[in-house]
């Protein structure tokens, strides 16, 4: 039943979408003549109602698909392929857009919703554009609904109802995947709104004001794309286990390209609103943004572009290519016919070294960046056509081509606030020269002291420092100026500044975020470090100043997968940092394996550990160790970027309570995201203090021996102490007892004491074991695991040799042999 109704709803939506476009078009024509104006109004009104009805229809269809997932309607093929009864509810929700059919339906719904809101709640200035915008938006929705209905039906039924679904792709089982696709889609569908209004403005020749009229929508789309890209990067970092966050894959690029042009559009719109021209620029940016959205969906679904992301179904390619061609050719032709109206006589061309000049450079750079990434994504096709041989652009190509462009862009971010408007510019430059020079010197010096000494990276750090100082100076300047006038406390002044000039300071916050992200990108791209290492249990290995000790391998069965993890203690020098647990999950149904990396984040770098394999006895394992320099600046910059975007987007509200609530909600969201990145464990567990390493003082303890005496480690100063943690219930501990006894007999009386510390054991069993194995060295019970905790024991047996000066001379995890003990003791006695 659900399936049939769903299909019917989508079919109806297609009809309604086409009707909406027709009604709006008819209304426009009837309204033009005075005689039929009243009738035209009725048609336009009907179009508006139809837009709302379309949103409702698609909303109900999406809701039904969601319900089908929540209630396991496996008769629907799409549900059976992407869900199962065992996955948790939040994954069932995200499974709705885990495949092509469901994501297209979500896309349709969001497109209809945006169309209804943008046309229904249009501002006074935008109202004359609404009828034509309705035509374009309805046609866009109709295109996507038609693709869904004819080519990619989410409600197709299976001839036989399976008892269980196939389950969700393990790679998509991440909370970020609930938000990543919808955020990207908000960006994609949002860009259709400025496109529709721009076309309406061209047709009706009301070219001056359209950017201001739909500013909010451009901003929503741009922020949605930004959020989607950031979530995708973080997801790749957490889940894909390859140590990176951005691979310049064509499908990643497909999200980045419209973000570039949308950023250019936002900047161009500011110029247009300030009556400084840029009309043609903005029109071009809006057309390219929309065409690139179509290109993005095409790239993802056509299979024509070599990508590891791509959806397998390739039957949509031709339709999308046609849509792209119609869009670009049609809108450019329209633009050409309106070229006279686009000329703005009032705009004067200023010097290149001015605010206008910087905006021009910004737009130019975003265009060349778009072009570069587009060329890179299409390079195999392009080189085949022009050179007869296919060449492919890898990450090295993209880094080399875009790196210098990004550097100039950051430089422009720094120059822009310095240049200001007109004559005041020079004065301002003189005021701030020491601040920006300071920034450009301090940041690279600090970076060089932290070990980042590559010349090109230092240039990058200097540019970032310069731009960061110039942007921060804007905030300080604003606060000082305001305080002169109002005498407010500094924080209070900052709050009012942010509240009253949201767009300006939101923009600067975004710039700050981008500058921080640049630091992270320079660090990760220019200082990559990756190594593979195979170690035995208990063995230590040193990587870039970290000491990693592979403790043991464990495994367990969870829901529908088998998980195996390694406990790896991490030390820097001799200080215990954490215990990392990289995992490998094997899904029983599909035999697919998923690597789950473990992270130790730090301001300078992340230590990123992947478990890649092990021997069947679990005694040896192979790890991939990745060190990502400065990567946390990237994530921190991302949060500040989102905060700035949110601030710029927030509507003007007079009510102070609501502003306060908005501030609190925003801060809570940011803190939540921050907690998810740095507060959550990410496979890192802290086992108290960790064990003391060689060269450190051995923690003192008092042990009550079975013969009634009490011995403290301190009292053994001047002697060598062998401290062995063991238990009668541990087979390998029992195995090593004869070896320990042998060494004890060889070294007693030569300044060597043995201490057996029984871990989680009872007096009676220990006594009988000592008798059974003829053990004569002193043994005591570790009541309450006190000593085991002090020594950071992660399993038994473990043996520590303490030198006469009270420092640890040797650590051994796992069973020890008499020969190994003798070798250590001999070298100490020498």
């Amino acid at each position: 039943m659900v399936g049939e109704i769903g299909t019917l709803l989508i079919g109806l939506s297609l009809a309604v979408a086409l009707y909406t476009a027709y009604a709006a078009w008819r209304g426009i024509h009837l309204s033009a003549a005075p005689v039929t104006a009243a009738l035209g109004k009725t048609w336009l009104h009907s179009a508006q109602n139809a837009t709302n009805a379309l949103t409702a229809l698609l909303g109900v269809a999406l809701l039904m698909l969601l319900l089908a997932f929540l209630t396991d309607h496996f008769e629907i093929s799409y549900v059976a392929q992407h869900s199962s009864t065992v996955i948790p509810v939040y994954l069932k929700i995200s499974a709705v857009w885990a495949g092509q059919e469901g994501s297209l339906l979500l896309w349709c719904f969001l497109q209809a919703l945006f169309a209804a809101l943008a046309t229904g709640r249009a501002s006074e200035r935008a109202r004359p554009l609404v009828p034509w915008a309705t035509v374009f938006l309805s046609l866009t929705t109709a295109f996507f609904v038609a693709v869904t209905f004819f080519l990619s039906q989410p409600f197709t039924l299976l001839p036989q109802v399976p008892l269980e679904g196939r389950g969700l792709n393990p790679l998509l089982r991440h909370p970020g995947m609930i938000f990543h696709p919808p955020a990207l889609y908000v960006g994609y569908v949002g860009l259709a709104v400025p496109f529709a209004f721009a076309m309406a403005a061209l047709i009706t020749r009301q070219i001056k004001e359209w950017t201001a009229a739909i500013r909010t929508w451009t901003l929503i789309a741009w922020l949605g794309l930004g959020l989607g890209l950031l979530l995708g990067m973080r997801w790749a970092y957490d889940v894909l286990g390859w140590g990176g966050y951005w691979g310049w894959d064509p499908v990643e690029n497909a999200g980045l390209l419209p973000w570039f042009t949308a950023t250019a559009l936002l900047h161009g719109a500011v110029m247009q609103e300030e009556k400084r021209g840029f009309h043609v620029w903005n029109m071009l940016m809006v057309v390219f943004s929309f065409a690139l959205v179509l290109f993005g969906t095409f790239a993802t679904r056509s299979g024509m572009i070599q990508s590891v992301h791509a959806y397998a179904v390739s039957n949509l390619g031709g339709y999308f290519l046609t849509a792209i061609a119609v869009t670009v050719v049609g809108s450019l032709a329209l633009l050409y016919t309106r070229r006279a109206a686009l000329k703005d006589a009032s705009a004067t061309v200023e010097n290149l070294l001015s605010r206008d000049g910087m905006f021009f450079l910004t737009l130019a750079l975003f265009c060349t960046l778009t072009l570069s990434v587009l060329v890179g994504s299409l390079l195999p096709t392009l080189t085949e056509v022009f050179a007869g041989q296919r060449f492919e652009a890898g990450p090295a190509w993209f880094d080399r081509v875009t790196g210098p462009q990004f550097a100039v862009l950051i430089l422009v971010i720094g120059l822009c606030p310095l240049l200001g408007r007109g004559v005041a510019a020079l004065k301002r430059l003189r005021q701030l020269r020491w601040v920006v020079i300071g920034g450009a010197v301090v940041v690279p010096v600090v970076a060089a002291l932290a070990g980042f000494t590559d010349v090109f990276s230092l240039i990058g750090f200097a540019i970032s420092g310069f731009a960061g100082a110039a942007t921060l100076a804007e905030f300080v300047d604003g606060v000082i100026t305001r305080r002169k006038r109002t005498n407010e406390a500094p924080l209070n002044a900052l709050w009012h500044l942010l509240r009253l000039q949201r767009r300006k300071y939101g923009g600067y916050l975004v710039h700050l975020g981008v500058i921080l992200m640049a630091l992270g990108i320079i660090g990760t791209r220019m200082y990559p470090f990756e190594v593979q290492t195979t170690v035995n249990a208990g063995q230590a290995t040193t990587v870039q100043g970290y000491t990693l000790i592979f403790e043991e391998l464990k495994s367990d069965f969870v829901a529908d997968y088998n998980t195996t993890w390694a406990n790896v203690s991490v030390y820097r020098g001799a200080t215990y940092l954490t215990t990392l647990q990289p995992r490998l999950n094997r899904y029983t149904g599909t035999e697919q394996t998923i690597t789950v990396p473990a992270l130790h984040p730090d301001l300078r770098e992340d230590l990123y550990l992947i478990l890649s394999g092990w021997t069947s006895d679990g005694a040896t394992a192979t790890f991939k160790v990745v060190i990502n320099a400065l990567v946390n600046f990237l994530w921190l910059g991302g949060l500040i970027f989102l905060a700035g975007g949110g601030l710029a987007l927030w509507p003007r509200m007079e009510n102070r309570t609501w502003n306060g609530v908005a501030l609190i909600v925003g801060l809570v969201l940011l803190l939540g995201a921050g907690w998810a990145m740095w507060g959550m464990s990410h496979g890192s567990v802290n086992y108290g203090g960790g064990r003391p390493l060689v060269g450190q003082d051995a923690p003192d303890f008092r042990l009550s021996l079975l013969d009634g005496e009490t011995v403290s480690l301190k009292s053994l100063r001047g002697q060598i102490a062998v401290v062995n943690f063991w238990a009668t219930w541990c087979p390998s501990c029992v195995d090593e007892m004869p070896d320990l006894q042998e060494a004890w007999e060889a070294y007693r009386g030569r300044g060597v004491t043995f201490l057996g510390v029984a871990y989680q054991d009872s007096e009676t069993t220990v006594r009988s074991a000592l008798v059974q194995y003829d053990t004569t060295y002193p043994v005591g019970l570790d009541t309450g695991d006190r000593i085991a905790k002090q020594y950071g024991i992660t399993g038994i047996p473990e043996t520590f040799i303490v030198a006469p000066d009270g420092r640890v001379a040797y650590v051994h995890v796992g069973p020890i042999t008499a020969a190994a003990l003798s070798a250590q003791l001999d070298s100490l006695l020498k």
Partner: protein
Amino acid sequence: MQNKTTFIVAGLLIIAAVVYLIISSTGSTAQFFVTVAELNAMGDEAMQRNITVSGAVLGETIVYDAMAPRVTFTILNVPADPKEVERRGGLAQVLHDAVMDPTGPRLEVIYNSVKPDLLQNEAQAIVRGKMGADGRFYADELLLKCPSRYEEEVPAQAGD
């Protein structure tokens, strides 16, 4: 008017710089992108340069030594031309047919790294690296996609 010229010159300079970057990077870092059949036909020339080759993974040939770690597997020829792929019934079908046909051109790949999660029968492998003198392909980078089982977004740069 002079100012307008400045803008045009600045714009042209930027474009020229970017075009130079694109062309020089294509010469230095872009990689030759071939099918298995084309690679086999290249002969000794294939050993001189960095190459990207794409093909279908033959599941039964995957051997993984987790301790090295090293993966070896064989890929089979699939056409690169999207129209050709389309004509033969889509990528999944083409990959399936390639694996079913033991007589087609094949290539043994050696990848000295962790076995990616998606390396399985009928996956499409895109490998970057160099041809060895022993006739086997030594990959630095391995990208995979699996159209058969999961058709949705499976961004698996798992083998970088």
